């Protein structure tokens, strides 16, 4: 742990099936999470080599406050994305962050390729690289169940990461499932595990630390009270992120049918309210977070003539609902859950997968592809066929699905329809709010709605000037990078103000960092962008597909010249960073 003066790092080589544990004093300066992952990629990464090269590292990190305070509950994965070819980050909750903390590991670096499928077991006094040939080909649910049954240690204090068929087959947007329901979702980390023949990873958090400073207990209590009493946090537990569905639809900002529209006539049937009233089974939480924002729905499927039902539990959030719902013209919520469950089992990033299938549907309508390519007819709203198509993407059934599994634009470059490939760095997230969001995802570090939340600025009464928008995006990125270096859940961004963050660091015995957080954040931003540029990212080459210029959003027809100017200026800023 960093307050002991070093970062404890486990370096794993899958080729030799051995590990080394290092205590690195010099890395304390990088804080943790995003900052530490970038520093370790700088040291261990191969910027010029293919993302799926044997020795490209997967770098798991936590931060100096992980496990010390409420909602310091996320882990970061740094890697070279096989989707974009650039250095990338993806974040996940679940049990992982605290399991790593109490396994006394600030970071885990996995390199090499195993000679046959393996899974790893890590703990503060344990390391094993085990045969996973019996797990290869299994879906993510069965994989976890089998590992749980064969690994007795650490129940309740462990985390299990695994890939499905999509990862095994190196689909460029295969995710890593974390503890059922959470994911290292975006940019294809699952494919990197697949290329390494690493089916799963179990981390057991059985270690302990002495309490830090004298002020710590009181500060913990204060923050806990604030989190549990705050109305700002209640919304995440109540309807959860799907509260956005109706809000965005009302604002004419819900991407619908491959962004042919920004309003979905069946929005109510896929809304947070619909899910909560008809389908919500319960909420669960990440370890160390009393909010409980993970919403689990009950999917009941009739399988017999009589009253015979199978039931499944499926987690839902705004992004998955948009991707498998409005974007594909699918409703009601029950139908959306069929697709979410399929993505979960296959180990696919549901956002990219949904948007890719939305493009394929429009390309089918346009006659650019036919049944020989899609194998099942794709039309908006065709849930069962989409479910089958997701299986085809995962197993890369034919050349078409192979290309679609490389990314929507790769397929569009081959078959046509690039104008309506809804790609902003990667397949778009569920906000058609306007120019600031489109630019912010296209150029954002993670190509994610979470980089800078440009959608908030689009909802202001008046469009900001380009200068105002740039200032907002640059500042927001810095603030968020600081939080993801601790590693906080971004839902807690209003709880962990700069003042609270400083107090938390001081009470954890890390007062040396509390005084210059702004400078550190700025430096980490620069280092992280430099890394992405060193892996080939050229901000000035980023363009937006025509579809994004054709939408009507809450502020009317999209202002194209403004968006171009913002894109150009933001690219220039990143270039100079």
């Amino acid at each position, binding site marked *: 742990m960093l307050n002991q003066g070093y970062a404890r790092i486990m370096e794993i080589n899958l080729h030799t099936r051995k590990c080394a544990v290092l205590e690195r004093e010099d890395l304390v300066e990088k804080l943790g999470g995003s900052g530490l992952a970038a520093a370790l990629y700088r040291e261990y990464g191969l910027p010029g080599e293919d993302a799926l090269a044997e020795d490209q590292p997967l770098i798991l990190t936590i931060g100096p406050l992980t*496990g*010390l305070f*409420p909602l310091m509950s996320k882990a970061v994965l740094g890697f070279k994305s096989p989707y974009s070819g650039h250095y990338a980050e993806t974040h996940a909750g679940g049990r992982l962050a*605290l399991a790593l*903390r*109490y396994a006394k590991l600030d970071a885990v670096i996995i390199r090499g390729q195993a000679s046959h499928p393996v899974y790893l077991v890590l703990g503060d*006094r344990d390391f094993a690289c085990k045969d996973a040939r019996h797990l290869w080909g299994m879906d993510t649910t069965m994989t*976890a*169940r089998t590992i*749980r049954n064969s690994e007795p240690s650490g*129940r*309740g*204090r462990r985390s299990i990461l695994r890939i499905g068929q999509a990862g095994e087959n190196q689909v460029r947007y295969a995710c890593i499932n974390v*503890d*059922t*329901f959470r994911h290292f979702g975006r940019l294809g980390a699952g494919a990197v595990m697949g290329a390494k023949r690493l089916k799963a990873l179990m981390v057991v*958090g*059985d*270690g*302990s*630390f*002495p*309490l*830090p400073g004298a002020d710590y*207990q009181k500060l*913990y209590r204060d923050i*806990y009270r604030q989190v*549990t009493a705050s109305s700002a946090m209640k919304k995440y537990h109540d309807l959860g992120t799907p509260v956005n569905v109706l809000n965005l639809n009302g604002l004419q900002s819900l991407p619908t049918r491959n962004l042919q529209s920004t309003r979905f006539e069946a929005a109510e049937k896929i809304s947070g309210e619909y899910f909560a009233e008809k389908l919500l089974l*319960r*909420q*669960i*939480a*990440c*370890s*160390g*977070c*009393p*909010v*409980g924002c993970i919403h*689990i729905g009950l999917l009941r499927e009739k399988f017999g003539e009589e009253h015979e039902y199978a039931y499944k*539990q499926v987690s839902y959030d705004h992004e998955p609902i948009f991707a498998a719902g409005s974007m594909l013209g699918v409703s009601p919520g029950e139908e959306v859950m069929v697709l979410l469950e399929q993505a979960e089992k296959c180990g696919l990033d549901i956002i990219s997968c949904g948007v890719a299938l939305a493009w394929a549907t429009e390309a089918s309508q346009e006659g650019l592809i036919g049944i020989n390519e899609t194998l099942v007819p794709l039309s908006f709203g065709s849930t069962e066929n989409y479910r089958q198509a997701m299986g085809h993407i995962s197993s890369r059934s034919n050349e078409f699905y192979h290309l679609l599994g490389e990314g929507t634009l790769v397929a569009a470059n081959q078959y046509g329809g690039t104008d309506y490939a809804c790609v902003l760095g990667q397949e778009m997230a569920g906000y058609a709010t306007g120019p600031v969001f489109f630019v912010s995802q296209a150029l954002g570090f993670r190509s994610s709605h979470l980089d800078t939340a440009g959608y908030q600025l689009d909802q202001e009464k008046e469009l900001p000037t380009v200068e105002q928008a740039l200032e907002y995006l640059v500042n927001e990125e810095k603030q968020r990078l600081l939080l993801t270096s601790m590693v906080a859940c971004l839902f807690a961004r209003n709880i962990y103000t700069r003042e609270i963050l400083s107090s938390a660091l001081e009470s954890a015995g890390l007062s040396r960092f509390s005084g210059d957080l702004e400078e550190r954040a700025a430096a980490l931003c620069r280092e992280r962008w430099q890394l992405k540029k060193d892996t080939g990212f050229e901000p000035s080459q980023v363009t937006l597909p025509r579809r994004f210029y054709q939408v009507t959003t809450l502020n009317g027809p999209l202002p194209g010249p403004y968006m171009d100017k913002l894109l150009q200026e933001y690219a220039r800023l990143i270039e100079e960073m």
Partner: protein
Amino acid sequence: MPKILRAVAMERCIGCYSCMLGCARQVHDSLSMIRSGIQVRSLGGLTAGFEARYCLACSPAPCAEACPTQAFEQRPGGGIRYKEARCLRCGRCAQACPVDAVIMDRETGRPVVCLHCGRCVAFCPHDCIAMVDSHHHV
């Protein structure tokens, strides 16, 4: 009569582990998940819900009977009091517990068990755990 801890509504549990972290922090002066008298875990994957494993406050307590040094003393109302200085770290208490609620801390070699102090209760966001009269059964 002293009160005892009971997991009265585990069907409401969201698995946040705030109770475990609270016990470790307040009772054991530790940052830990394992150094906690209450252990929450899934019933077999997150789809199955959660259970809490903790001392059921037996009276007489088999762990106290098994303890050769009286480091575990019978607590009025059920459960035990722990006298650390007397403890040999032999682990007989853990072997004797019928519900596996005594954990041997690998780092210190000492037993960790719920002392029914109730300090975890305030950190449960859904009132899954409570201090109740000792004749209470769930």
